């Protein structure tokens, strides 16, 4: 009897142990899910898979038809969010922050996997899970590979696939900055502030490097708000809600 009770308690505890995290996740499900997918994407971006040796060469129409015949569809695209931050490119250069790529959105809007997954490896065995839709970096790795002179490097493969399509569809970012944010240098070393600085000191320290950005801000509505604040409760007729007036207490 005592033993049974012990078992019962153990089962209950186990159940509670498993349920607790999911319950807490349910409470703030949005943040935890994004964190989760962001971490996953970050981990995934670091993976380097073995390079595909030979690809099956077929025309785009044939490939599209064959993919339809295999009943592979957008619903099979399980991973929706990727970070493009491969060590293959980083070994050569590191100028930009990782590009955030919404795989699900692209799959849904194109409706055809073969638009991006334009070729497949000849050999099925090493990619038994999804041999038809291997990742870009399975075939495209190092640039100017002496053994595969006609194969693009990963960086060029991305750009040659993304840029013409964005232009053609007139959708998504059309400039470099649209996808690439500059690598932000670590500010811990750059910022020089005394112990317990006052707000003005902090602003002055920011301005030391970002004076142009500050000047730009002075000409935006954020700084010199001059209109009615229709959606501000009790203050809908207030016209000086800019950062330069009431919204900021720096002066």
């Amino acid at each position, binding site marked *: 009897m005592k033993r049974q009770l012990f078992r019962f308690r153990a089962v209950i505890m186990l159940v509670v142990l498993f349920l607790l995290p999911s319950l807490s996740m349910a409470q703030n499900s949005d943040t935890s899910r994004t964190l989760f997918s962001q971490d996953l994407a970050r981990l995934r971006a670091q993976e380097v898979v073995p390079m595909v040796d030979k690809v099956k060469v077929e025309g785009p129409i044939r490939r599209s038809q064959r993919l339809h015949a295999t009943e592979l569809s957008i619903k099979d695209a399980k991973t929706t969010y990727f970070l493009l931050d491969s060590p293959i490119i980083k070994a*050569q*250069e590191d100028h930009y922050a990782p590009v955030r790529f919404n795989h699900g959105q692209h799959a849904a809007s194109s409706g055809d996997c073969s638009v991006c997954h334009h070729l497949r490896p000849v050999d099925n065995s090493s990619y038994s899970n999804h041999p038809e839709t291997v990742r870009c970096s399975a075939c495209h790795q190092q*640039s*100017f590979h*002496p053994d595969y*002179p*006609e194969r*693009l*490097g990963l*960086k*060029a493969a991305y*750009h*040659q696939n993304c*840029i013409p399509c964005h232009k*053609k569809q007139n959708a998504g970012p059309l400039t*470099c900055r649209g996808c690439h944010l500059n690598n932000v240098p670590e500010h811990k070393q750059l910022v020089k502030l005394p112990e317990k600085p006052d707000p003005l000191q902090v602003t002055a320290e920011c301005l030391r490097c970002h004076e142009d950005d500050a000047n730009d801000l002075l000409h935006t509505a954020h700084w010199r708000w001059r209109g009615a604040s229709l959606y501000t409760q009790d203050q809908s007729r207030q016209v000086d809600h800019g950062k330069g007036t009431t919204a900021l207490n720096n002066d």
Partner: protein
Amino acid sequence: MQLKRRSFFKLAAVGAVTAVTTPCTVKAWESKAPQDSYGCLVDISRCIGCRKCEQACNAVNELPTAARSFDDLTVLDEKRRPDATKFTVVNRYNTGRIDDKGLLVADFVKVQCMHCQDPACVSACITGAMSKHSNGAVHYDASKCIGCRCCMVACPFEIPAYEYHNPITPKVMKCTFCETLQREQNKPPACATICPTEAITFGKRNTLLNLAKKRLHDNPGRYVKHIYGEKEVGGTSWLYLSKVPFAKLGFIKLPFNPLPRLTETLQHSLFSYLWSPALLFTLLGGVMYRSHKKQSAHQPDNTQQPGGAL
């Protein structure tokens, strides 16, 4: 000894025969092009005109800071040439090509030293400051340069530039093919590495030629059927593929013969064993001797005539 009219003609005939036979004994001109050298293939249809190659070149070669940012694409509004402060430039050409929406599509052409297989600048350099390396690079050694600028005159692509602003230690400035990068870090030239679309492909020249031919074959209608640099001036390390005729993109039409072939053949055949100056002076000496003799034969009459008249 008196040189008679007959013996003079004999001498002249011997001279003429030597003149005809001597060049035959001189060895025929041979190309010194490296066999297993590197090169770059520029696919103009892939270039998006982002000017990153210019930026990378500027950084790697420690060139002076540019007056306008490399992100500023309005620079492309005018045609530029490489000069002492920039080894490579990208120019934009509107040839009237339109896309499927009917919008004008520009072509972007990267200009830099072509690193000829048989470079005219190397042939023209009198001190050996310019040399062709086995990796394909046309190398400039400032320590040997005397600043005669013959290389600038000789280059068919008008590439070498001169530091006119530097009166004490001026140098000839041109693309280095990032030889130091290649040698020390085993890396391709900076412009090729940074190119986002691989419009520049780096590799062995022979591999690149095959690759270019494969692209021409696999994409019928995409390119004009010409690999610029395959045969121009005997071949260059930098090769170009284009959608529109090269003449519309600022490429000059050049002979397929290596330029040093004519100049070096002329020079080597005319000046070997100093036979041509020797012959020239012999002939001139003969003419002088003859006219002198003629003059001295008539001289008594000439000197006496005025006297006789008196």
